[in-house]
């Protein structure tokens, strides 16, 4: 796990975090992930005579997950559209007189 992974995750989550903020969040993030890793031991129980954890699972299909990428709206709504807009006047867009 590197800070770059956290940076990518923050971008996917629409969290504009500064490098400083990411560095501060990183230890807590890593601590939680290493805590989550204990769940791996549960898999070892899946072969138990009583059916274990795998046998009792009623979980969602992995195919239902969202793609790990920015939504298409990101491109459609930002640069492309804005480059087709009229000229800018500071925070405003100048609309040419048509009539």
């Amino acid at each position, binding site marked *: 796990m590197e800070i770059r992974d956290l940076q990518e995750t923050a971008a996917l989550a629409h*969290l504009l975090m500064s490098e400083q903020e990411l560095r501060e969040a990183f230890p807590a993030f890593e601590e939680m992930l290493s805590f989550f890793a204990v769940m791996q031991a549960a898999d070892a129980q899946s072969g138990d005579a009583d059916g274990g954890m795998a046998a009792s699972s009623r979980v969602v299909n992995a195919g239902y997950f969202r793609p790990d990428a920015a939504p298409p709206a990101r491109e459609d709504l930002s640069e492309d559209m804005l480059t087709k807009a009229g000229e800018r006047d500071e925070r405003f867009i100048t609309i040419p007189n048509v009539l």
Partner: protein
Amino acid sequence: MGYNPDKDFVQYAQAWEEKIQAFIEWRIGEELLPAPVTAAGNIPEEARTQIAGLPFAVKDNIAVRDLPLTCGSKLLEHFRSPYSAAVVRALEAAGGFVLGKTNLDEFGMGSSTDNSALKKTNNPWGIDRVAGGSSGGSAAAVAAGIVPYALGTDTGGSVRQPAAFCGVVGLKPTYGAVSRLGLVAYASSLESAGILADTTERCRAVFACIRGRDPQDETSHETPEAAPALYHAETGRAKKIGVLSPEAIARALAADATGSEALEIAVQASILEDEVRRGFELAQERLAGLGHTLAPVEIPSLKYGVPAYYTIATAEASANLARFDSIRYGARPDWAKNPEELIDKARDAGFGAEVKLRILLGTFVLRSGFQDRYYLRAQRIRAALRRDFESLLGDSGYTDTAKFDALLMPVFPSRAFGRGPSSLSAFAQKAADLYTCCANLAGLPALAFPASVEGGLPVGVQLMGRAWAEGTLLDIAEGYEQAFPFPHPEGFQAFWRQVCTKPL
């Protein structure tokens, strides 16, 4: 007695509020007339008399029309709700009325209420200590006697833990027993509206009023006919209570902890403080003395409960909190170059550090390549936990016989903790959720009530029951309360002991 904002009470409430800071906004001193009772026919008379004409407080992630709905966040600091949650409407229809909105950890994420971006709430038993969380404002308001009961939400213990810290009753109902319409979602498959009350009787009355199917919440259900009655159940019957051994859980956790610093902290966080252990043992003695049969039980899958809980909760939070983008909800930045920047800026300025951490975790566990390792594995553990509990308590369809009527366990390993360097770390607070989060993972009802006072602070214990068996849990706790009345903090005055006995 109905709500009577006379000088004595107003002064009493204001003096407490100055010390504990339970409310984000309240209407103390205003002449508030209860709404006409419109649902009297649907509610048992015993319940109505505990609610009609009395004020209640509402955690500020539950909608009340024209009042704030901040969720304890800067992002929603100026947002006011255009409608009321189903639970609030049900209580208003029974003659109750809202006194104010209470403080909470931002979006319900925390165990102290110190994660609120708006204010810190103090414990009425000692203002240098936290009230617990995330429903800390509601618990503190009830413990101080400002309101007889309050609504909270419980995603992983957020009603029961502050109830234990403040010495009041806290009920997390069966998942689906109460409508979630009007609750700001954090982890939809885990959370439910809950009750914090001054007495078991009051808690039962409020639950009787708010439970039931709501056509606007497809996850809500009516109580099955086979479930124990909430009122007029066979009284006095001794119950079979399974006792979960905290030592066994700590040993099981320690077995997996070798080489992991995080797990070592989790093991330490799971060990009961001496005072909590004494309170837990006293509760066992007292329950046995009341005629109940107690027997030890073990739930091996419980040691995976907290990581599974935080995996699922953060994953759901990452999706639920996507709506706070300043377009649908939330304060909008002054300007942005494009919609992407608008969203990013709003979320960066609006969310606190704990919320950002949980969104990051939730996004990460759902990323391509990591879903099997985290989210799907957590779901398998959740299913196993539910099966383990059902093997002891019976299934939700009432098709089998239960070995136990309820399970007894601690609520939290410590009493209300203080602030500063000696406080529990943020990670230890999460790890310490192990006794509460399992009820949310399994969707089962759980009731926290004060067992004793140890070292000047209340110690709560928790009963967990079969799905839809809130009545059984309340019966056991009510018997305990009758024999060992619940304690109150110094300065408490009982303004709400009398109840309205005539229709308003």
